[in-house]
């Protein structure tokens, strides 16, 4: 699953763009959070990796801005498994393995939209990378 942040402007909010795309591509899209009013809004959603690119492009063709908030990156050479980040995570994406190594669950992590753990890492091992709108879906796929 990949997370995408969809931003609607004032005109787009009036149209049922999201529902159209969900029906057209048969996307099992899970909405994680939505803040919408008549002036525009944001939806944070999860879509399966294999149709990520299609969905992102479909929104963009309709003029809707989509970002793929990248999951934060953890430099395992720098991380010394102190654990400072664990209890800060709102979705319990960070945990202590059996051998006391600290592990990040990329499936659970909210990515750069959250970043609560980033400035608490004494080893500066966690980076949140904000991607630009244009090529994020492609880059995501190559990885």
């Amino acid at each position: 699953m990949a997370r995408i942040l969809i931003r609607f402007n004032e005109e787009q909010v009036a149209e049922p763009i999201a529902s159209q795309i969900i029906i057209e591509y048969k996307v099992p899209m899970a909405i994680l959070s939505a803040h919408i009013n008549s002036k525009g809004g944001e939806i944070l959603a999860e879509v399966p990796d294999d149709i990520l690119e299609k969905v992102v492009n479909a929104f963009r063709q309709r003029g809707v801005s989509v970002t793929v908030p990248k999951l934060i990156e953890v430099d395992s050479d720098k991380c010394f498994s102190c654990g400072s980040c664990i209890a800060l995570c709102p979705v319990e994406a960070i945990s202590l393995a059996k051998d006391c190594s600290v592990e990040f669950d990329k499936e659970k992590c909210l990515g750069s939209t959250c970043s609560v753990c980033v400035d608490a890492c004494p080893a500066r091992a966690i980076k949140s990378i904000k991607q630009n709108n244009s090529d994020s879906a492609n880059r995501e796929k190559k990885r």
Partner: protein
Amino acid sequence: MSNPSKTRTVEEINQKIRKGDAQVLTAEEMKKLVESSGVEVAFKEVDVVTTGTFGAMCSSGAIVNLGHSDPPIKIEHAWMNDVEVCHPGAAVDLFIGATNMSEKQPYEYGGGHVIQDLVAGKEVELRATSYGTDCYPRTALKTIITKEDLNQFYLLNFRNCYQRYNCAVNSSDETIYTYMSKLLPRFRNATFSGAGELNPLMNDPDYETMGMGTRIFLGGGQGYIIGEGTQHSPKNLNGTLMVKGDAKKMSPEFLQGGAFTGYGTSMYVGLGVPIPILNEGLARKTAIQDKDILTDIVDYSVPRRDRPKFGQVSYKELKSGAITVNGKKVRVSSLSSLKMAKKVSQTLKSWIDEGSFFLTSPVERLPTTTVFKPMRQTEEIPFVYSVMHKAVTCTEDEEIQAIAKRIVTKSVNHIVVVDETGRLKGIVTSWDITRAMAEGKKALADIESHNVVTAKPDEPLEIASKRMAQHNISALPVIDIEKKVLGIVTSEDVSELLGR
């Protein structure tokens, strides 16, 4: 008194190490053995127990000698990678303090990182200035050095290895950044430090085997305990160590710079002490478990020496990931690395097993009676309670007209809005009232601000004053834990007392 079967000596253990048949267990393994087979068997079978800890130890540093430049300089100020280092000695001896921050990247890079870089063999830029003397004429210097260029490069940590440490929480409404890391508001997380049952001092709490001259694992190399650490407080199980070791032989894995947002930099130090099991008592003591080691839950949002406490927790609970504070479940995580602490104790064990590390008896044991005193202060500083005065209040159902009148008769600028029980609801200023009258508004609800910045009575006035400046306001209602309004402190009160 000495019954030969009931004791063994460090020399006997070293003989065994030489022959390759010393029995060494990590503290973790020892606890299991004592639990399964009892103290007597454990004493018979085990010669040495290795301990370990890996945590941020701010009172650490390194002494370096640079050799003389030509023409020579008597260094007055010096920087390594833009971190100011101190010049405690004659001409070219410097002390790199772990918490000194880079002038270019404060909070991100500091003395601990300089030491780590040097230990790793990296090049470090050195700058120095001086006033010049007849014998040391040079006034400025810039060069690149590595550890190979230094005559001496010794880690010299004046307080390491706290026996145990507090568990930190934050009861306030704002996230705070402390040396106990990021603490989310309203008890949303807790942090702790220390290895608990693996901690060296916890495994020998009477310091039977430790003191000046005890050879230890330090930063991936061998070092020595050189005495009690500063703030050593053995009576309440807060012992500390002063240690020294040749940093040229250490490893950047076990000595790492640390960056604490909003606090500063530090150094993570790996430290392990081998405990010779000289008698059954030591076998029993090294069996101590996390459940038996308690520590206080301390509220770091109160910026005082004696911070409020919320009871005690064991390291077992702390390591479980959640504790209970005030009846509420709070997720907790460590600042020091348990994984690395284990690695320290395992590495030390392997050194002894392979005969590259021998034990020593201390020439003087760590003191057991030192008392850690608070600072003698000859000047009192003011607290909020010293200047706060009675607040002029109103309730939400009052008319603006009536409140305006009160502002005039009491000649104040702030009216605190309270409910029937005296709890804080909001605040209105004379400016809010003036505007409301001009705009013809009648209801207090339209103008009252609910997002009130407050003060606590026992906060230092300086901190309350900073908060006013930060929020660009001129008064703070003073409230207690239940939000009952106790009074108000204004910027005039502050300037009267602090003269600003």
